[in-house]
């Protein structure tokens, strides 16, 4: 069984479209994250949720909106996609109280987004 899963694995879309990426973890973790990895491999945290509560919201355009229906799921919706949004988006989870950090993070396989 996959611990952290993401769908879709690949996403190719036109500029201006709206798209969603889904993430699920079956590890029973309390905290989930979204990261963006650019072409130079820099990993930048975007959001973190703990028990469905948003606790980290880095400087990310309002076009990105995370949604956590329950603590096992954290989805990412992106409005009005731009060329610069092309990247690999990783979901991750960790066990921890209010995502205080220091816990091992388990990453999903990534979603490779290409905006044309």
């Amino acid at each position, binding site marked *: 069984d996959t611990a952290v899963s993401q769908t879709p694995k690949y996403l190719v879309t036109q500029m201006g479209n709206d798209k969603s990426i889904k993430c699920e973890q079956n590890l029973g973790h309390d905290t989930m*994250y979204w*990261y963006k990895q650019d072409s130079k*491999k*820099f*990993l*930048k*945290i975007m959001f*973190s949720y703990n028990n469905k509560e948003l606790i*980290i919201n880095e400087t990310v355009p309002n076009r990105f909106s995370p949604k956590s229906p329950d603590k096992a799921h954290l989805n990412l919706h992106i409005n009005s996609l731009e060329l610069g949004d092309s990247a690999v988006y*990783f979901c*991750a989870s960790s066990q921890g109280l*209010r*995502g*205080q*950090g*220091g816990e*091992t*993070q*388990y*990453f*999903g*396989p*990534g979603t490779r987004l290409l905006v044309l």
Partner: protein
Amino acid sequence: GQQVMQIPQYQHVQEGEDFTTYCNSSTTLSNIQWYKQRPGGHPVFLIQLVKSGEVKKQKRLTFQFGEAKKNSSLHITATQTTDVGTYFCAGRRIGSARQLTFGSGTQLTVLP
């Protein structure tokens, strides 16, 4: 804000040579973790260091946490082609409730 830099950004080595990547934080860390990402894959946890001056080994990999808890290193002895990938350090600032800050990564290529 906290910054975590790694050097070098890229490293090409001949199989059998040693490799070291260095991680430096602008602030004192409570702990540091290392992750490995294979080409086309996702980051996978390798190890966590917590104590000042701590050294841990995993087969050919040696991890070290600096005395001041602001830097760390990963050394691979006698690299193999299976070591190819990007190595990230990630640390959390002392007293901060924020998440791990990932380093900029070192991309290792091992030539057969």
